[in-house]
């Protein structure tokens, strides 16, 4: 039996896909990720009822999945804000996302964790439903292998002056979302059954023109993603910085999908708050003075922390949790001249098991 993550769980594809995935005989747990709340406008395009409007999408779907008899865990957050290790135990990641930047993030996670990614999408204008399968392997294609320079130019960006990148609604009819959801589930089931032949495949159904296309993508040598899959070891979250440096003779510490900030600036009043902490995604909390959005400026951000120099003093006895790291985070430690080591932080309960 397997755990499957559904990222973008509540949308035009995800709302149809969640119960279908729950009904796969191989699945006994679903992790549902979507930050949004159902709006009245979703009634016509998504598999929901009037009573669901105003509720978190993942809560609605988790109830539905649990009624089928499958355990569900709901995460009402953007995927970029969740610790990567939450998905390490998954047999597959299914995605029905509406942003390429989120797809890119999920692609990185899947590859680092060595988990197959099944990604579905729709094009309402052409009545197309699409599903792609990416299986991390030595020569296999990832999502970005098929991206052109133009795709990178069009990536959604978070601008400090405009806040979150706005997403244009797909406006796809419910039947197209349901078609993509069915393809997503069929391919996920093939992956769960260990069908390696799925790697790099794209299947498109043109519902309007009654056509179907089966394509296979190859690894592109000029792909901007490094395709590194990681070997990940466990590490207690309560480990102190000093002990971490000693245990692994580590000179630097990095976090998958996050950075360290030594200061945060308020985007409304300009106030700067000092102190080392982990920052992930676009959400960095609110200013205590004016409740404006906080952001970590470029030169106050660090992809890795030099342990000896930065943490020897004030932070020597601090734990990883004191820096804002949480169970499920995957940290990378590296000393000069040695290979990187990747460690998944585990909480007390997981540690006792």
């Amino acid at each position, binding site marked *: 039996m397997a755990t499957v993550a559904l990222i973008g769980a509540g949308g035009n594809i995800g709302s149809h896909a969640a119960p279908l995935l729950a009904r796969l005989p191989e699945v006994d747990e679903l992790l549902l990720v979507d930050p949004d709340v159902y709006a009245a406008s979703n009634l016509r395009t998504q598999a929901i009822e009037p009573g669901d409007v105003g509720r978190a999408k993942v809560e609605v779907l988790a109830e539905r999945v649990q009624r089928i008899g499958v355990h569900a865990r709901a995460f009402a957050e953007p995927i970029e804000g969740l610790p990567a290790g939450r998905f390490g135990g998954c047999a597959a990641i299914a995605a029905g996302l509406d942003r390429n930047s989120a797809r890119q993030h999920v692609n990185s996670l899947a590859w680092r964790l060595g988990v197959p990614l099944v990604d579905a999408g729709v094009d309402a204008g052409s009545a197309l439903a699409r599903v792609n399968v990416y299986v991390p392997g030595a020569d296999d294609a990832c999502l970005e292998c098929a991206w052109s320079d133009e795709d990178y130019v069009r990536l959604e*960006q978070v601008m*400090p*002056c405009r806040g979150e990148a706005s997403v244009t609604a797909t406006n796809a009819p419910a039947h197209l979302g349901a078609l993509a959801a069915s393809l997503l589930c069929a391919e996920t089931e093939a992956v769960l059954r260990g069908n390696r032949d799925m790697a790099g495949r794209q299947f498109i159904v043109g519902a309007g023109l009654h056509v179907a296309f089966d394509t296979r993508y190859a690894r592109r040598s000029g792909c901007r*993603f490094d395709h590194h899959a990681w070997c990940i070891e466990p590490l207690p979250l309560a480990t102190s910085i000093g002990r971490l440096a000693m245990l692994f003779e580590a000179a630097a510490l990095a976090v998958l999908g996050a950075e360290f900030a030594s200061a945060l600036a308020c*985007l409304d*009043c300009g106030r700067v708050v000092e102190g080392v902490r982990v920052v992930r995604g676009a959400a960095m909390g609110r200013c205590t003075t004016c409740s404006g959005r906080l952001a970590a400026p*470029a030169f106050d951000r660090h992809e890795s922390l030099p342990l000896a120099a930065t943490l020897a003093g004030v932070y020597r006895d601090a734990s990883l949790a004191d820096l804002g790291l949480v169970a499920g985070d995957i940290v990378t430690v590296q000393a000069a001249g040695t290979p990187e080591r990747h460690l998944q932080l585990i909480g007390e309960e997981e540690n006792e098991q």
Partner: protein
Amino acid sequence: MTDAVFEAFLRAQGEAARQLNAQCDTVVLHPADPLTPAASYVAQFRCPCLAKASGAELREIDVVEIGIRFTTQHLRVFDTVRALQVLAPRDLFHPNIIGPVMCVGHLAPGATLEEMVLQVYEVLTYQRVTMNETDALNHEACRWARANQGRFPLSSLPLKRRRVRFDECPA
């Protein structure tokens, strides 16, 4: 993306920094880290800009320092806040700037040093201004800018020095 490709990109930016220093009167670029090739720069702009401390008078300044950083993910993801920072002075007066944070508009992943420097220069000299108060980072500067549109751009000098074309000179 291999590390070798990113390193090649950084080396190209190092060469671009040398060329910009040779061709520009308005900006000087210094590597800001000891690594070779450098992954961050301090760009010192020598152009008319506006600054205003809280409760003080608006003043004109002529030197601004901006930090430019290339993260290891720069070729895949571009995030203005992760890439650009106002280092000095911290009281620049512009609708797109608040404290150390600035918004220069859309730049694609893999944006070059020259593209970033040009876009920052356009912001500093009020050639690029957010006039919508709900989008602006500094609302006071936005109100001022809307009321004083005739005063900018503060400089219309091109970033790079124009070269004299001797072949086009009259005999």
